């Protein structure tokens, strides 16, 4: 699976579909969240936290971050593919970007699970 991803060989059509669906999901999430946030005064900690009290908001937020990282990863693959012609260098750079994304996924998982599962 990993080797397949590094060869950037999951098909163009699949990427195209993923990119559109993740984009639509993110737009819907952002619209719903801005509606929720505009009802609160978010400059208070209690109000800010209470937005994320409901289970579906937490679930949606986690999914939002995963979807955002995935969307960003496909975008990065497209950009490096267009501007970095040398395959070996492109792989190294893609790998660096992948590490940056994976680190953020770990941080998100660590914090949100700590805040939302352990504390609850």
């Amino acid at each position, binding site marked *: 699976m990993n080797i397949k991803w590094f060869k950037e060989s999951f098909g163009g059509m699949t990427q195209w579909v993923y990119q559109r669906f993740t984009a639509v999901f993110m737009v819907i999430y952002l619209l719903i969240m801005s509606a929720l946030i505009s009802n609160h005064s978010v400059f208070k900690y209690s109000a800010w*936290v209470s937005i994320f009290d409901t289970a579906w908001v937490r679930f949606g937020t986690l999914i939002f971050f995963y979807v955002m990282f995935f969307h960003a990863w496909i975008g990065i693959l497209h950009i490096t593919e267009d501007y970095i012609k040398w395959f070996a260098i492109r792989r190294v750079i893609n790998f660096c970007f992948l590490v940056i994304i994976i680190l953020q996924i770990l941080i998100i998982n660590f914090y949100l699970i700590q805040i939302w599962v352990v504390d609850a």
Partner: protein
Amino acid sequence: MRLPLPALVSILHRMSGALLFLLMPFLTWAFCSSLSSELNFAKTIFILNSWPAKVIQIFFIWALLHHLMAGLRHLLLDLQIGNDLILARFSSKTVLFVSFILTTIVAYWI
């Protein structure tokens, strides 16, 4: 060389996407840190209110809005809406204009 408007929107879509990728760690940090505790929330707000953070936020907001608008335009083009030259130029202008205006409004509000 004159860059056609739809091409400008397209390249800015790509650049704003790259910018969003680079600024993503700030979003991840701010989100996690603001939720983790009351003290961290106050610290996060304090840092976000400093002027370098505000400059970053304005760039972030512009990149997000432009990427969003250009992305919606892209989805419409996928649906065969607005493929002819006049509409394509009009929608590019709209994308540039709306994202700029909204950024100005949000920047004023920040």
